[in-house]
């Protein structure tokens, strides 16, 4: 083998091994993140964390019970607002849409999708908070605005992937269009749609920036949806920036809970989707 060829072969080996290194590096990042959070957060997770309210800085026995409940409330409300709107819009785009209008809606949805979440927070601040004060509802609205375009596009995607023959079969049997959609197409696309929804909800439950100027924060139990409400991501943020070691421990613990929740939802969603694909003939 000539020298040049030997060099080419060696180069090939080196470069391909490097790509393997890159891949391993990328994957290991996930485990590094999880590892740090489990190590630091796991030590700080105790019964107090889930049941007690935050205490003034410097005092022990603090917890984040209000933030956990607050996050659930805000995300739940955002889901109740955002999922139906996104779902319906997605159905329109895939089943009823004309050419130009649907294109416009699609374009706007993608636009909205790409808007940094902090800009959405500003929008909700100018429109809602300035008139109605900081509240969980404002926070939920901001999150819903993020959820809607994600849900709309993913719903549309999975609805489109249902073969036209299913629709035609139902129509040939005399079903009206909406009945076809409701009883044939949606159930066929149900797995993908559900996956998209779960992923979207997981995404918004980790969002912090839009909550900063809408639901603010609260060291007590929230007084209701129209009051400032604590949330896990905001708590992680404020506690990470503080000097108190106790608050740092709490930040790790909250981060761990948040990450586990998000990861669990993501894994569940992907399993649903993959199982669905395996089952479909």
């Amino acid at each position, binding site marked *: 083998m000539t020298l040049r060829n030997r060099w080419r072969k060696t180069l090939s080996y080196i470069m391909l091994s490097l790509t393997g290194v890159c891949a391993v590096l990328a994957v290991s990042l996930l485990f590094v*993140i999880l590892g740090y959070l489990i190590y630091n957060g796991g030590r700080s997770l105790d019964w107090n964390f889930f049941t007690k309210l935050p205490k003034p800085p410097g005092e022990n026995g603090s917890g984040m019970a209000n933030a956990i409940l607050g996050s659930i409330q805000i995300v739940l409300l955002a889901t109740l607002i955002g999922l139906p*709107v996104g779902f319906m819009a997605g159905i329109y785009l895939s089943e009823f849409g004309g050419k130009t209008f649907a294109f416009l809606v699609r374009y*706007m949805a993608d*636009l909205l999708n790409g808007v*940094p979440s*902090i800009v959405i927070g500003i929008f909700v601040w100018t429109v809602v908070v300035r008139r109605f004060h900081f509240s969980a509802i404002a926070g939920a609205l901001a999150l819903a605005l993020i959820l809607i375009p994600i849900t709309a596009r993913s719903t549309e995607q999975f609805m489109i992937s249902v073969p036209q023959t299913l629709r035609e079969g139902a129509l040939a049997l005399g079903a009206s269009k909406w009945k076809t959609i409701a009883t044939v197409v949606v159930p066929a696309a149900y797995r993908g749609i559900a996956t998209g929804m779960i992923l979207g909800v*997981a995404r918004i439950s980790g969002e912090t920036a839009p909550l900063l100027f809408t639901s603010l924060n609260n060291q007590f139990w929230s007084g209701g949806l129209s009051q400032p409400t604590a949330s896990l991501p905001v708590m992680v943020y404020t506690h*990470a920036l503080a000097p108190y070691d106790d608050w*740092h421990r709490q930040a790790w613990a909250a981060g761990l809970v948040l990450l586990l929740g998000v990861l669990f939802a993501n894994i569940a969603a992907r399993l649903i989707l993959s199982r669905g694909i395996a089952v479909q003939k």
Partner: protein
Amino acid sequence: MATSATVSAPRSGGRSFVQRLRSGDEIARLITLAFATSILLVTVALVYELWVTSALPRQKFGLSFLTSSSWDPVSGQFGALPFIYGTVITSAIALFIAVPIGVGAAIFLAELAPARISSAFTFFIELLAAVPSVIYGLLAIFTLVPLMRDYVEPFLRKTLGFLPIFSGNIYGYGYLTAGVILAVMTLPFIISISREALLEVPTEQREAALALGATRWESTWQAVVPWARLGIFGSIFLALARALGETMAVTMVIGNDPTIHASLFAPGYAIAPIIANEFTEATGDLYLQSLVGLALVLFFLTVVINALARLLIIATTRRGSAHP
């Protein structure tokens, strides 16, 4: 089940409005149309609000808002340049680090890895994309900042300190650290989209190169990757769009100094972090509206980059089914 509405009086083409209404289809169409329109309305309202609420600085400074580098609430001078600079620099650092690693990993996953490892790895990498920004920030403060401050930046200063970008005080917080965490956050997007682009390359490309005597690497690098380059560029633009708008992680480590610095070690600022930090407390209308003006700049930047990304990705998939 045939209803009388659909059976009676069939026209030459579609059904009449009344017939559609009776069968419930028109209602369904109108309801879903309403929801779809709401997306349109919200987006329009968003742009409108941003535009209107940033009128003052536009009136007062005009285009110099974008080119002025002084941000001084005391004297009422607001210029966007330090933040545009910070946003661009940190994103550039992020891409500089993430693109080689990301494309490399994508090549491995698409070309070399056996199918099961490839899907397992891809699964984990997609999970990485789901980690919330604030968690990256949390990790960055307690693990990355000390690492940069105590090891990486001093090393860079010792070896490459003659370059202005690697000179100056080392805080740990600053453009470089922000760029590194952004690199980690954008890596999964580059990998997963590039991998899909690479998988779409027809095997003939690969095989032709190998048949001509190319090494495995040469076949990959010179035959496969160029074919997928549109998709790969698309993934890079997408990653860029995300990096531009990332707020929490960057806010927590960039150092919050609204000045332009040459050194990457220096604390700086970017558009999303200053909005996050100063929005709730901007006293005075000009101040607040200048922040909204920054948000508008960010909005336009991400819209343009996202559009480019999508064009590139669409071009790839269309190309995949057509011929070059």
